[in-house]
């Protein structure tokens, strides 16, 4: 079966996102990957991830269409998904193992090889065994990215095996670091049929699904055999200039964010996006068209990157900052949102005995104050107000924003979508659809006018 679709790609500074849209403007697939140093690969992987996600959407639709399968879909689909991801993971592990071996060979050090080769065998045996438990329904993965999962597993296993030999540990980590780059540089996602076959067989082997084996095989087979026909693709984002696309297929992220936010929340008038590199305040009209926008100036003050510095400074994960800040009972006034000074001010305050949570609450507030001034520059905050970007996931930032908006603009409906990270890619996909339809219309109009011309001529 062939399915027409429209593709949007958002090449961000930290992650690359892709959205597949069907002809009725329904989102059928989402893909996300880290942007890496190679934008081409990032773009390809995000697209493949979105395609896989689309196949699962189609699989789900297929299961829903069959009364018996629909009844067990709730338990069946998670198994298929987990096993599918496991198959993918095992392929990558295998590739990683080969690359590690290559790296060891490159060192041309017999003594090291004699230790490292058997150790790698052991390590990967451990990793393979562990992976069985990682990919099950209801097991929250530590990360969606292979690099993260593999790195922590590898480190743990090697640490055990080297036994107090820091030099050897360093060398093994060096091997991993080199090898993972090669693995990341390749795509292992295009073997959907192979993985889904593995997943299907693993799943139907489970006692609860045995009796539906035939129907399940039929459904997964269908999902594997759909071909996607991308009628148009639009790219956007920080790195959009580096996408291998012609100019007509590139849109500014401002426009894409505006349109994406409009799609998610049709009553949106004002959009705030706080990403890693920049902050944007956007005003849109009733059709999602940008009427005004402001971006932060040169420095990254008040952007997601700022929180990154703070997290490093405090030796915490970025996602831990918000929850800790929410424990604050005393608001500390922070004046500097300058990333350069943030560290100094932070250390100074900590040394003065101020509490971490209070300082963090102050930092979040001052970051949102910067955003407030951009919003004011762009014209203000109107109903409805949609907040997107990575920082929209930070509860302390959201709380500070809510409070400041209410104090200064009165009550506003604040929308935050759990999928807000895909806003730009979604906007791009809609542009892809509109661009395609406009082209078609033009061709049709030309055809009609030619036809009319002919009729006139005939007349």
């Amino acid at each position, binding site marked *: 079966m062939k399915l027409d679709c429209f593709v949007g790609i958002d090449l961000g500074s930290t992650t690359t996102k892709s959205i597949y849209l069907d002809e009725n403007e329904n989102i059928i697939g989402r893909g996300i990957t880290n942007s890496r140093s190679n934008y081409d690969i990032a773009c390809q992987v995000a697209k493949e991830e979105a395609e896989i996600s689309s196949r699962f959407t189609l699989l789900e639709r297929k299961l829903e269409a069959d009364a018996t399968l629909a009844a067990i879909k709730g338990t069946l689909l998670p198994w298929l998904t987990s096993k599918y991801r496991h198959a993918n993971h095992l392929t990558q592990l295998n590739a990683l193992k080969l690359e590690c071996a290559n790296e060891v060979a490159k060192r041309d050090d017999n003594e090291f090889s004699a230790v490292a080769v058997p150790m790698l065998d052991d390590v990967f045996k451990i990793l393979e065994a562990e992976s069985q438990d990682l990919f099950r329904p209801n097991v929250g993965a530590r990360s969606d990215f292979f690099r993260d999962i593999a790195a922590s597993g590898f480190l743990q296993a090697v640490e055990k095996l080297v036994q107090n030999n820091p030099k050897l540990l360093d060398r093994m980590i060096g091997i991993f670091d080199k090898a993972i780059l090669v693995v990341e540089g390749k795509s292992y996602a295009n073997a959907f049929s192979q993985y889904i076959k593995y997943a299907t067989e693993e799943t139907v082997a489970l006692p609860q699904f045995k009796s539906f084996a035939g129907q399940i095989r039929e459904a997964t087979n269908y999902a594997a055999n759909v071909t996607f026909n991308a009628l148009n693709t639009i790219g956007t984002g920080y790195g959009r200039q580096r996408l291998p696309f012609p100019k007509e297929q590139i849109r500014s992220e401002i426009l894409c964010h505006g349109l994406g936010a409009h799609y998610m929340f049709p009553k949106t008038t004002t959009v705030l996006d706080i990403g890693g590199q920049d902050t944007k305040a956007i005003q849109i009209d009733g059709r999602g068209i940008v009427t005004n926008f402001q971006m932060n*100036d040169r*420095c990254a003050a008040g952007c997601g990157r700022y929180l990154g510095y703070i997290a490093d400074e405090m030796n915490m994960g970025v996602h831990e900052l918000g929850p800790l800040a929410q424990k604050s009972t005393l608001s500390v*006034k*922070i*004046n*500097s949102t300058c990333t350069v000074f943030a560290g*100094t*001010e932070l250390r*100074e*305050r900590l040394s003065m005995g101020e509490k971490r949570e209070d300082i963090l609450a102050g930092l979040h507030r001052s970051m949102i*104050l*910067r955003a*407030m*001034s*951009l*919003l*004011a*520059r762009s014209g203000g905050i109107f109903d409805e107000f949609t907040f997107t970007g990575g920082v929209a996931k930070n509860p302390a930032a959201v709380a500070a924003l809510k409070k*400041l908006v209410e104090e*200064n603009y009165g009550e506003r409906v604040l929308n935050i979508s759990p999928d807000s990270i895909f806003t730009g890619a979604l906007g791009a996909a809609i542009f892809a659809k509109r661009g395609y339809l406009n082209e078609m219309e033009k061709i049709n109009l030309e055809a009609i006018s030619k036809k009319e011309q002919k009729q006139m001529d005939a007349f």
Partner: protein
Amino acid sequence: MGIDEIIKKCEHLYNDLDFGYVKAWKEKTGGKAIGYMPVYIPQEIIHAAGALPVGIMGGGSNLEIIKGDAYFQSYICHIPRSTIEMGISGKLDVMDGMIFPAICDVIRNLSGMWQMLFKNKYVKYLDLPQNFDPEIGGAFYRYEIEDILSHVSQITGKKVSPEDLKHSITLYNENRKAIKSLYDLRAEVPHKIPTSEVYLLLRAGNILEVTEHTALMAQYMTEVKKRDIKPQDNIKVAINGAFCEQPPLGLIKALESSGCYIVEDDWVLGVRYIQEPVATNKDPISGLVDAYLTKSVSTASKYEDKKEKGEYLINSVKETGAEGVIFCMPSFCDPALLERPMLAAALTKAGISYTSFKYAENTGQFRTFKEQTGTFADSIKLWGGV
């Protein structure tokens, strides 16, 4: 009133960004209020026309800027942001007019923004002359004074006679005298007179009706002389560069606690801009013109016509017995920061040590400043200079 009470009163005026005193004064007297920005305007003409001149020196360190930042790029100083913030949030509604004296392009353009934002209010850009010839710059300045006088008279509905103006000049001469005595006394016994107090007294002068302020100064002088405090091993310093956007009070206190006695400064400079009494024996406007042309301080926003650059600062350092100069300047302040290399060169030539830092009116942390000026003080104590 004891010192504590006086300072508490001043502190209240300093912190009250809703200008409660001005509101009450207007209600009580039925008069009008005219706000003005740093550095200098001839307040006498406002006073003579029956209005209260109110010095507005930004929003300080407590005002949170929500919308003000939307009007200015990041490379522009802080005072216009907080002033706009106060304007659009209605805190300055109590002013019946605003005067923006020539100081720099930012404040100049702020006058235009005010014209657009507050179309029904009196907005005046006071172009202080940079030519100091009585027939040329003087004639132009007279025109500017008369222009303000006629507008403010129209606002208050009071016709101003030469006698009215002379009376106002006399009151301001007394006020200047009181301030000068306080500054002289501080230079003499700085251990008894903390600058944080002097500063608050001066800031009170931005708000209070002039006679009330003069009386308050006199009271403070009487009380402070009774103080019995032993001098510490501190150095005496002169502060330069803080004539427009003001340092937060916390910063002034930090400087004082770092081992420095401040014996000269240029914050709230407007009230000390004219250094000698304004003549009342001739036509009063001529007296004011002459005072600006010939009796005013040297400062960065005023063209240095005849004197050598730095001469004025070096003299004041010598007169007050200061042992060093602290350049304490707002970030992005064109007048102060462009002046600094010239003053620094003059000080070096005169063998006077200096150190230098930048602040903003809402700077929240003072530790690094304190460390810096503390080191500066130590180096002067140990080696007589850096």
